């Protein structure tokens, strides 16, 4: 039943020892950790070490998390920090240019920032979608499939009239904007609903 928990409930349940709630946190956020590590071009083994360290750290900090909405930001900054450490460890065995090889040069840093913001936006959307009822999640998934399903196919799969798919899509997107995940995010990134983004990704929890 963990899938129906909202984020604060999942964090509270995990802190209280509920393995299912923890597994659900892993399911929701493992992708965010992976997306961040990928920006640092670590080897697969190093990326795996970073991921495991981040999750072990989160176990340590579960009871300190007062604002669950900031979890994505905490995960991004912790992962990023561990990637920076890991780069230096990798430098022990991989030949590198002593001037440029193991310093984070500025243009790349900017690139990483914008990719992290994008990864966080995607995470926020997945969190928002997780708050929607199953049939709404299903329609969004079908509309997002690659290659895309036609409205006729979707109509057949879900047993709803073709003519209702467009209006239903609009209604579901409206509900998505009203989810806690997306409202918290848009408020935290400047209050103005029309623009996402912002510096929220790098906010610390403590």
């Amino acid at each position: 039943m963990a899938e129906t928990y909202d984020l604060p409930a999942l964090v509270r349940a995990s802190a209280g020892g509920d393995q299912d709630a923890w597994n659900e946190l892993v399911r929701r956020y493992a992708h965010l950790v992976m997306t961040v590590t990928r920006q640092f071009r670590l080897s697969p083994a190093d990326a795996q070490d970073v991921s495991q360290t981040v999750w072990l750290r989160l176990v340590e900090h579960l009871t300190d998390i007062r604002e669950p909405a900031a979890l994505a930001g905490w995960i991004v900054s912790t992962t990023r920090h561990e990637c920076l450490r890991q780069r230096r460890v990798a430098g022990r065995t991989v030949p590198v240019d002593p001037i440029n090889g193991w310093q984070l040069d500025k243009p790349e840093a900017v690139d990483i920032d914008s990719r992290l913001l994008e990864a966080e936006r995607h995470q926020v959307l997945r969190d928002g979608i997780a708050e929607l009822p199953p049939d709404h999640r299903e329609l969004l998934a079908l509309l997002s499939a690659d290659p895309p399903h036609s409205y006729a196919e979707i109509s057949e799969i879900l047993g709803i009239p073709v003519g209702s798919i467009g209006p239903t899509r609009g209604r579901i997107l409206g509900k998505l904007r009203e989810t806690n995940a997306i409202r918290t995010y848009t408020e935290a990134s400047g209050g103005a609903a029309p623009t996402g983004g912002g510096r929220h990704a790098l906010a610390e929890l403590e």
Partner: protein
Amino acid sequence: MEPPRLEVDGMPSPNWSNDDELMRDVGQALRTEPVEERILVAARAAFTWRTMDAELDLIGVLYDSHLDEAALVRGNSPGAPRTLVFHGDDLGVEIEVSDTGIEGQLIPPGPGEVSLLTADGTHATVTADEVGCFTFPAPPRGPIRLDCALESHRFVTEWITI
């Protein structure tokens, strides 16, 4: 009229009040590739440490030479030993990690027992001498932590990948 678009680091922010733009972002968010199973398995297993963390004092990293830009400027090569200091209110542990192993000292200096723990639960225990010095052979790769039992206190360090 459309409100002006804010830009972050030169990248336009998405306009989520527009259905098509929101749907495009939803599609990207849902199509991102799944995480490898072994990474998920390790992440789920991390939870088994929860009870230990709840019981013992946890001490964080105060200093890491790998994150010290000044040490880099001084020309420490990638092969140089890495220094890590874990410090709490009045106790902690300092370690130097090299290819050959870990040398450390308890703070305040004094005798004790130190265990090196890995994420899968294996550990090695050594005795710290009268000034708190101890040595471990090089551990397997992956996250580790130290469980330090001094005469009057016991604490664990936070996890660190070495």
